């Protein structure tokens, strides 16, 4: 019970990139593109039945042929320099109520991922996810970086377009990373591995909707490709960004003008340093979110 490896390649100081779905599927989109661009090979999987309810049954001629579970796969790529290990989970193990994993199952799954990392001699893990931020969807998403040890701070800061928690207004270097993308940082630290979580920003007024946000993924992809020293063609992600932006724009145009005016203010706000002329206030933010919820008749979710 646990991990099933299809092969056991000899890897050179591999770096692991791991992710599970979350807000805007930011991490999964970025990591999956990276995996495909690098033509990484399948390495193995975490046996899913201990963690998930099956999502599909196949019955043919009165015989149960199989059950399909969310996949949790490992991939590898030999690069000639530091090799790369990927882990991509299709779903976070949950109790069916919360979207994000927590508790025993999450801890068990995080440890299985780290088991594989250690087995292949990995010392560094990247995880990725989303950072909900008061930004406008036309703005470039920045990447929040959270390392699991102090000696990684300078490196994390050195990547272009990144911010630390301490760079963010009112956070004072504090925050939470919900679910396995966060938990893996802690488990890696406990087991002696360096890890950095890279989170692409998603606008606060979009994060509650079950839609991908490729703009955040693009920023994550840029940071990961720098960190791994790999050049990644951006055509695919650019096309996704363009499509998503036009879809968001069409919804945005249908918003009541009062709300749109409020949201437009986000174009001129940098939340690290509030700027002129009309920074969005907490009162404004609350009002905007209430109006948006009313418009779409749903509750906001979030990391």
């Amino acid at each position: 019970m646990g991990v099933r490896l299809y092969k056991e390649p000899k890897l050179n100081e591999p770096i692991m990139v791991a992710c599970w779905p979350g807000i805007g599927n930011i991490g999964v989109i970025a990591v999956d593109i990276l995996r495909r661009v690098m033509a990484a090979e399948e390495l193995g999987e975490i046996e899913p039945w201990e963690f998930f309810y099956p999502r599909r049954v196949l019955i043919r001629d009165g015989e149960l042929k199989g059950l399909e579970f969310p996949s949790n796969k490992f991939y590898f790529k030999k690069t000639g320099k530091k090799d790369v290990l990927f882990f991509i989970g299709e779903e976070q193990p949950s109790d069916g109520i919360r979207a994000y994993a927590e508790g025993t199952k999450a801890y068990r799954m995080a440890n299985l991922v780290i088991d594989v990392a250690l087995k292949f001699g990995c010392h560094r893990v990247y995880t990725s996810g989303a950072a909900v931020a008061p930004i406008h969807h036309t703005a470039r998403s920045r990447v929040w970086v959270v390392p699991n040890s102090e000696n990684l701070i300078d490196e994390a800061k050195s990547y272009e377009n990144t911010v630390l928690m301490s760079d963010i207004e009112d956070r004072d270097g504090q925050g939470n990373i919900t679910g396995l993308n966060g938990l893996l940082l802690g488990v890696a630290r406990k087991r002696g591995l360096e890890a950095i979580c890279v989170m692409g920003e998603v606008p606060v007024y979009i994060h509650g909707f079950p839609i991908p946000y490729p703009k955040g993924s693009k920023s994550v992809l840029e940071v990961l490709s720098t960190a791994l020293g790999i050049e990644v063609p951006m055509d695919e992600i650019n096309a996704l960004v363009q499509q998503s932006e036009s879809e968001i724009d069409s919804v945005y145009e249908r918003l009541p003008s009062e709300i749109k005016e409020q949201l437009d203010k986000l174009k001129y706000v940098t939340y690290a340093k509030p700027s002129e002329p009309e920074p969005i206030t907490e009162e404004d933010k609350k009002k905007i979110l209430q109006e948006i919820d009313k418009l779409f008749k749903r509750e906001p979710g979030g990391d």
Partner: protein
Amino acid sequence: MSEGQSFKLFAKPKLESSSLVVAWNQDVGKVGPGVVGYLNRKLEGREFAEINPEGFFSLGGVSVEEDIAQFPESKFYWYPEKSLVIFKSDIPQYEWYGFLSLVLDIAEKYCKVKEIYTVGGMVSTAAHTTPRMLLSVANSAEMKMMLGHYELVSDMDYETQDGQRPTFSSFLLWAAKRRNIVGASLWVTLPFYLLAVADPQACKKLAEFFNGRLELGIDFSDIDEEIVSQNKEIAQVRNKFPELDDYISKLEGNVSLNVNESEKLVREIEEWLRRTR
């Protein structure tokens, strides 16, 4: 498997080889629990083990159904001199695979279970005067071949549709197959307007299968009386309410009802049968 922590064992059944029949309390028309309840009564089943609810159910209070507080139950029964074991349970909310593994552990260790059946109901738009059908899904070619000796519909093709998920019975059959235990899900059809009340005919159809397969020697005269009595009651409704008679006649002629007609039929039949019992 840790006795005391995850389950309680009250007795050790003396079985050399047995068949396990599994019913989930959350079943369409309560057919599953109805059938195993009937077998339990007829064969004087003895409870011998119970799975503890901790870790499998939320335990954040109790639900109330038909004015009665409910609590999750997962119990095993055995029957001296019969090669039958019954497991009747609520469907767990968490740790599904762990729960199924525990069921299979107990079944293998204490009952030497060689085959597994799950029983349940399947809603049908056919009239109550149409004979019930028994459908099967086997977890192996071997089991499918064995079921071929019985009068079952066993050529079903199915794939889970978006927005749905597999039944817990499918999950159990799959888990059993991993241990080389053969098994089958048996589904009996029942008319949609008898969902809220018992359908003794559906219950008998399943019980008859086990009676033949496991040589249980059950005398069905009591359930036959129930069937006759229920049919009489429905006949009275048809006489009294020509509109409902018309609806049922349509179903007997394979003509579908519209939503309003269906709802009215369900409501009136349910009300009538509840009042006369």
